[in-house]
């Protein structure tokens, strides 16, 4: 009797889960299979016959290996990711520690600091476009008035990428700060007390007690930002269009351009699969880290 009941319960649970698995399979697995298949064809929408041409399945990948612009985009991506993640971790740590102070005023500020993170990314990009366009930028005119005119950053080969990093850090700093804040909240008071009783100075406490404690949280936050940095799109689309030259053309953007400006969908699928593979590896690492911490499962 009991076993029959348990069996019925299990069946109900399975029935609860099943629709989601079916929907997920349809909306994610099927397209992924399609993507892989497309990457094996030279599909070019100006020549519809290419859709079913599997005569040279590795053709796109062979082209990719010799495509300077692809490798350049990987390098740009690496620089962008390193820059944004590093600054967001350092800045997020600082902001998180600042916001951890208990006072009504700081609490109110916490909410304000959330704003950049929740804004639609395209609106963030437009805001920075205003600031980076010398003709209408209050920053440019203020600096010019102070006698410190600066060149237009988004068309400057050395500054275009940092300009995007600045905007991205602005947008996502609250995220890492929030994660730091959450970890700090769970930090045992005793450890701090003990360190203080031993006569450690403020920065020593920070270095030897707080930082080691925050390390896993920072790692998780960093990994999340790293994975998201691979998807960078609106900022580049609005601010630089990948330029000047290809200084800010990340892999994601190159794939977009190949597919949706020139209709090379087969070639673009190959680039995209390379991206997916990279993201997959990072996610796997992330799951292991998070899993070890016990937050997942």
């Amino acid at each position, binding site marked *: 009797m009991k076993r029959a009941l348990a069996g019925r319960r299990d069946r109900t649970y399975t029935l609860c889960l099943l629709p989601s698995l079916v929907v997920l399979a349809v909306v994610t697995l099927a397209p992924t299979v399609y993507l892989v298949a497309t990457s094996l064809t030279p599909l*070019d929408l*100006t020549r519809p016959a290419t859709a079913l041409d599997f005569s040279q399945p590795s053709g796109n990948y062979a*082209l990719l290996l010799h495509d300077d612009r692809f490798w350049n985009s990987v390098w740009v991506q690496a620089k962008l990711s390193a820059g944004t993640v590093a600054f967001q971790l350092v800045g997020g740590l600082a902001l998180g520690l600042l916001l951890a102070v208990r006072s009504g005023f700081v609490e109110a500020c916490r909410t304000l600091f959330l704003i950049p993170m929740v804004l639609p990314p395209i609106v963030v990009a437009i805001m920075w476009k205003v600031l980076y366009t010398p003709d209408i930028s209050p920053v440019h005119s203020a600096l010019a008035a102070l006698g410190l005119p600066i060149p*237009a950053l988004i068309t400057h080969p050395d500054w275009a990428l940092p300009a995007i990093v600045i905007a991205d850090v602005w947008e996502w700093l609250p995220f890492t700060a929030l994660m730091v804040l959450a970890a700090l909240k769970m930090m045992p008071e005793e450890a701090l007390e003990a360190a203080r009783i031993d006569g450690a100075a403020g920065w020593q406490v920070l270095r030897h007690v707080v930082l080691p404690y925050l390390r896993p949280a920072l790692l998780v936050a960093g990994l999340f930002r790293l994975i998201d940095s691979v998807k960078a799109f609106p900022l580049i689309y609005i601010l630089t269009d990948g*330029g*000047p*030259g*290809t200084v800010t053309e990340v892999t994601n953007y190159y794939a977009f351009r190949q597919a949706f400006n020139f209709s090379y969908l087969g070639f673009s699928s190959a680039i995209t699969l390379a991206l997916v593979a990279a993201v997959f590896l990072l996610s796997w690492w992330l799951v292991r880290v998070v899993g070890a911490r016990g937050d997942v499962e």
Partner: protein
Amino acid sequence: MTCMPLHRPRGSTRRMFLKTSAAAVGLGLVAARAPAVLGQAKEFKGVTLNGACFQHAYTNVLKEFLKEFEEKTGMRVNFETPAFPVYNQRADLDLSTRGSAWDFLNITFIYSGRWIGAGWMSSLEEFLSDRNATPPDWDAGDFVSGAQASLTDAKGTRYGFAWEAGAMIMAASRYDLIEKAGMKMPETFDQLRQVCAAVDGKDGVKAFVNDNLHHWHWPPYLMGWGGKVFANPPENLTPALDSREAVESAEYYANLLRQYSPSGALSYTMDQGALAQRTGRANLRTQAIAWLAPLATAPDSTVKTTVRFAYMPRGPAGAFPGSVSHGFGIPVGAKNKRAAWEFIKWALSKEMVRRAALEKGYIAVCRKSVIDDPQYRKNMTLNGQDLAALYLRVLEESGRLGYMKYRVVPVYPQVGDKMHKAIERIVTNQQPAREAMAQAQREAVLELKKAGIKIDA
């Protein structure tokens, strides 16, 4: 649309008329063709027409008069005019799926080979041969043949009608500064460089400016140097971007932007470039006439009395001012093709083109009957200069020498992108011209391979 009481009586008769005309069309189907006048206009009542073009002086004119068209036909027209690159990307994307988002689209010059070649645009011959769809006095033969070339395929099938015949000329917004330096309008590349060096920064005015459509601006310099984009378009599309002429002209043009243009000019849109000239922040520019004529006519122009126009300067191989044409066409997937044709007919009717030219000062018109009108010539005499003559000379030369063929091959958008990026790299000193052009050549070759096009080894 307008539902004001005043219009009601007319509306109801219109509805009655609609009924009878619908019956007439029904009968017509059985018997023969519907009578010419009857079906006209009213059969489109209630149709919502979607169309798009990049924003331009001419589309501004059309938008201003759009209400008249809507009232006349009873249609509602959503006419979108985004920025040039945004428009091209979105139109290309929709056409590539044979989509039905738009009933009429602009056939952008550099995409004409691609879109028509891939069979993404509808032939207009059916409408043109049907006297009910196209009354003879609309006069399709009135369009300048050079402007129609990119909208017509090898067999002579017409896919669009031109609203702009763009012709590149040169304008100095502050000719007074050039005179003060004891010089004249530059006629050669060497003189252009000398003039830039002499007047740059004078009176706070940078000597040169242009916008970020480098693959449009640079080829005239390339050809002036004796270089080519492709070996022999359209038969042989082997790129020739790493030739000595290409390297030298690229360095020359890049230097104009690097040394003599306002900060940030590299990313200027066409309008930002125009604004820089109109407000007197930059002096010389080589661009299509539609962007330069307003220096003399725009209400907010601060350089009306000092502007001067001239023919494109020449290099060792001659002068090759760019010419383009943009025209309205109908996508194959369009849902309301007949209604779209009605719009195109209206937008490019003799009357509308004449109004654009004579009332709105739009210069780059494509109807011979308007160009030949003495009033047009008189209107286009700006600041004492006969702009119409300059304009016609460009059209004639580009037609006679046929040097614009490189721009309408199907793979031009991809190859143009490579040139564009190369110029940007040179201007920003990321690469010397030789390296940048060698890279552009390699990338262009790769693109052509992807497109399945045979090139010389």
